[in-house]
């Protein structure tokens, strides 16, 4: 069994390093194929582990020691249990598909090899993140995925916007990482270990105030990676990266790491329900907040990015309220349909020659039937329509909110479900149906290569059927995670489901109805609320204005005014005092013997006076 663990973990690393050998060379097809194969191997190993864990229980190995100093000892240890194996399967499955897809997508890119090296490195980091048996190991993966995300967002580094977005993502994540580090330090000094099993076994003996602090610090870390408000702006900007990256990193895997962390620390968050509730509230807020921005955006990828943000909010609601298995379930189903959505969007972008404005598309159904169908499936799943995957997981989250008596959260999520349905179908309608706006630009869109479409089919299938695994999934993960039962009357439950389905369907219907007739009137765009939404609540503007600008100004002030004009000037001033007094004193040295003798006499007199005045006591 250990063998499969190492294969699953290191196959991506092997892939990355092997491909890196050819990174500087022009495109070589085999790099993509080898990388895809190795990631596929990792996926197969993960599936084997899934079966093994199901049959024999978790697997825990310690590979070697890493850091030890004082009382601190951190090994490279890996654990494959019910939670991590689900993450592994999800990650490797989506990664394999994205790798295969990228062979087609990056076909014409001159840095083809480099791309696969980064992409595999990302998979490796993500595997470390989910498989580690201690918090610092998780932090390795945490930072590793951050690095790969930086590399991949800025993949087309010649574009200013891409490298800017990459830096923004890295720095925003670093802010959150500091919070996480603080949480880790606190855990260490309270419990003396970073191992999950030790920490979770002993955490309940701690003072509740300290548990609360740990919970808050760790969640700050999760907020950065999962792009929760107010650290959310990087996710939309991260869409500068190649589309497969957006699908893999910024939809399916990395951004869910924060949710994974909260699920993993379920034992801890169970002890502090008030923090959990705060997490859930923030999640619900983000669910609505992001969905509202998705409503008016015209950028194909940004819409999906905001939708990801919103869905992450849903996951945090479930995780915050203690329904960890439901959060994990939504994480998994979301990974399938959201990556499908992104990859479909990638096909559209290719067909449109990297045009991203959905207002300039329209009517692509005619030329891209397969993509249109796949994206529609993903959108339906996202909207949460029975029997697609999203229905099962998202509906459960609403039920959890209702069950906990958090009716306000439930209502927010309920509205969010409607908005989700609307913007998903706004996108589908504007891209695939309606007027063929692209003709004005003289484009001739074409469908992606066949193997690309075939690669997407498994995701499409999963987006449809994944929901039916709910019971098996529940039984499997609750061996480790705290079970969460929903106690709502069947009648009420039926009404809730009906209401949620109702609002989702009406959202879809409204979108289809409006955009069939050519969309909303232009005058709407002049309204203040539209402006607020399309400018993302002016938050990026505010960050620029109130954080970046003052920071730059302050840095300059420190350098020019304080460092140069005060500190260094003081140092030079001291030097100059000596220098000037020397300059003055050299007049003494006139070269005239009489003068010198006079100075000498004066010196003797002064010394004599000292000799007379100073009487040693001894």
């Amino acid at each position, binding site marked *: 069994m250990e063998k499969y663990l190492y294969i699953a973990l290191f196959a991506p690393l092997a892939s990355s390093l092997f491909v890196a050998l050819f990174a500087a060379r022009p495109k070589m097809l085999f790099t993509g194929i080898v990388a895809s194969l190795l990631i596929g191997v990792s996926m197969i190993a993960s599936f084997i582990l899934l079966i093994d864990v199901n049959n024999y229980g978790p697997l825990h190995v310690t590979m070697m020691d890493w850091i*030890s*100093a004082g*009382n*601190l000892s951190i090994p490279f240890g890996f654990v494959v249990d019910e939670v991590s194996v689900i993450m592994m399967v999800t990650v490797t499955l989506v990664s394999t598909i994205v790798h295969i897809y990228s062979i087609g997508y990056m076909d014409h890119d001159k840095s083809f090899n480099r791309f696969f090296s980064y992409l595999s490195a990302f998979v490796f980091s993500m595997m470390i993140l989910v498989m580690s048996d201690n918090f610092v190991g998780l932090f390795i993966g945490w930072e590793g995925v951050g690095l790969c995300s930086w590399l991949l967002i800025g993949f087309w580094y010649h574009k200013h916007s891409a490298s800017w977005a990459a830096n923004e993502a890295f*720095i925003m994540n670093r802010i959150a990482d500091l919070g996480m580090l603080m949480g880790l330090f606190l855990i*260490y*000094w309270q419990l003396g270990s970073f191992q999950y099993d030790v920490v979770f076994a002993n955490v309940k003996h701690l003072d509740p105030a300290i548990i609360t602090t740990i919970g808050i610090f760790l969640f700050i870390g999760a907020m950065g990676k999962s792009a929760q408000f107010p650290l959310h702006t990087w996710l939309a900007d991260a869409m500068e990266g190649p589309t497969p990256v957006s699908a893999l990193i910024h939809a399916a895997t990395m951004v869910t790491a924060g949710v994974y962390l909260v699920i993993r620390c379920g034992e801890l968050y169970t002890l502090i329900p008030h923090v959990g509730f705060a997490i859930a509230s923030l999640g619900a807020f983000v669910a609505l907040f992001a969905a509202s921005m998705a409503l008016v955006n015209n950028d194909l990828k940004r819409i999906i990015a905001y939708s990801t943000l919103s869905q992450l909010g849903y996951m945090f609601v479930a995780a915050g309220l203690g329904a960890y298995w439901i959060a994990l379930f939504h994480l998994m189903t979301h990974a399938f349909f959201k990556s499908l959505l992104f990859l479909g969007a990638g096909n559209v972008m290719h067909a449109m020659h990297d045009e991203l404005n959905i207002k300039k598309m329209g009517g692509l159904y005619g030329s891209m039937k397969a993509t249109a169908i796949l994206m529609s499936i993903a959108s339906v799943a996202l909207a949460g329509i029975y029997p697609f995957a999203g229905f099962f997981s998202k509906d459960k989250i609403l039920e959890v909110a209702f069950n906990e008596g958090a009716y306000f959260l439930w209502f927010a999520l309920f509205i969010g479900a409607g908005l989700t349905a609307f913007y998903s179908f706004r996108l589908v309608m504007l891209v695939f149906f309606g007027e063929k706006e692209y003709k004005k630009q003289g484009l001739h869109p074409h469908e992606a290569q066949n193997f690309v479409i075939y690669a997407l089919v498994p995701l499409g299938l999963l987006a449809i059927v994944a929901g039916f695994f709910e019971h098996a999934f529940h039984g499997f993960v609750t061996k480790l995670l705290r079970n969460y039962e929903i106690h709502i009357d069947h009648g009420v439950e039926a009404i809730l489901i009906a209401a949620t389905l109702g609002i989702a369907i009406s959202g879809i219907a409204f979108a289809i109805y409006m955009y069939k007739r050519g969309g909303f009137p232009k005058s709407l765009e002049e309204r203040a609320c539209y402006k607020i939404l399309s400018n993302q609540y002016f938050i990026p503007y505010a960050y620029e204005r109130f954080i970046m600008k003052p920071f*730059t100004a302050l840095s300059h002030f420190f350098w020019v005014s304080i*460092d140069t004009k005060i*500190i260094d000037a003081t140092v030079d001033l001291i030097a100059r005092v000596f220098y000037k007094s020397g300059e003055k004193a050299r007049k003494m040295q006139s070269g005239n013997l009489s003068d010198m003798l006079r100075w000498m006499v004066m010196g003797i007199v002064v010394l004599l006076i000292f000799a007379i005045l100073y009487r040693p006591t001894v």
Partner: protein
Amino acid sequence: MEHILSLLVFFPAMAALLGFMVNKESIRAYAIGVSAIEFFLSIILWIGFDASNAGYQFVEYFALIPSYGMSYYLGVDGISLFLVILTTFTTMIALIALNIEKDIKNLILSVLFLEMAMVGVFVILDIIWFYAFWELSLVPMLYIIGAWGSTRRVYAAIKFFLYTFAGSILMLVGILYMAHLYYQATGVWSFALPDWYMMQIPFTTQLWLFGAFFLAFAVKVPMFPFHTWLPYAHGQAPTIGSIILAAVLLKMGSYGFVRFSLPLFPDASVYFLMPVAIVAIIMVIYAAMVAYAQEDMKQVIAYSSISHMGIVVLGTFAMNAEGITGSIFLMLSHGIVSGALFMLVGMIYDRRHTKLMKDFGGLASVMPGFATIYGIMLMASVGLPLTIGFVGEFLSLAGFYRISWVMTMLAGTGIILGAVYMLVLYKRSFFGAVVHEENKTLKDLNAKELTALIPLVALVVILGIYPKPVLSTIDMSVQKMLVLMEQKAVEQSTKDLIINANTVGGTK
């Protein structure tokens, strides 16, 4: 083996004397050979080093002026062992990468003499000798900056020399006073550090002595606000000077804290813990922000050194094994990483004769190898896990967390600000389009440069993944030192703080 330390100290100097006879064409090969032998000697030292013995090893003792307690006293323990290796390693790498034609012989001989002084500082246990090596290290550096630097080299060299020299004058007074105290207490003179360790000093005296030593170390580290010589020195120094300055000379200051301030004056160290920590935090944040405002690549790295040294100081004053071990490891990692970064800047300077970021842009497409190695070093510098930079930074901050979580958080902003200035530097010089015509034809790294850089890259990765042999050796000596500090502290509160800082759990 019993004279290996003497050999380590004086071999470079002897070789330098012989080097006067070597002709100009072969002096480079000669220097690389000498520094390689020196490096292998230090590796032999490590191999022969007994990792289960926390005390001084390879001790050599020879009484020079017994009536005044002056002796020739060498020894190495876990704290200094790796600093010695760092010194020999960096010198070797810097000599391999050396790319200066003018008066190369003089330069190389200066570097070899400097190596003697640096190794001497780390292995000597007699304080008078320590002071001598400490000051001696200034002279070759003065010469290196003053003779091979850029336009304002003389100003920078003199500033460097006078500033650090003035700082250490007070230390000499402190040393003499310490010896006097020892004489009063025991009736014999001694300048041997292990003897001094045994001495309990009254609290107020400790405060004064701590202050006297502190200034010398603070200027060297350099701590805010005594740091302004550093940007000038780095800005003007030739590449080899910057590498050695950043990698080794700064470490002498932080080594001084660990070797002298903490074990000699435990009560004073605890008493001054908060002020020092506040200064360290100012260093971290302030230097990081100033680094962000720089336009010259080399200045960015120079200020980043100050910022990182802030974390080193913070870790040292954590008063626990985690923090101090971490800070010593961070000294090593910062030596390697900043040395490599200065070397990289030097390589691009050799090609373009400018260090301003605005003159570059898009280098990633012209020089992919250079950009890759730069990127690795950058990630190590911002402390990415599995690179060497993470281990020390993590441990230092973790250690200081026990003292104060608020201050750790403030210092932790260094990891954010570090990412800010480093990534901005990288973006401005490596990303974007190639706008300057001259940059389009730049050559990627050549074989000589790769020979110098690849060992650094390898170390960054290897010690990032498996730092344990180094850490455990350091840790043992650090723990011994902490026990000593706890025993000889005169105030009960100091003892309590040290014990508390080293205990997991509790109410804080």
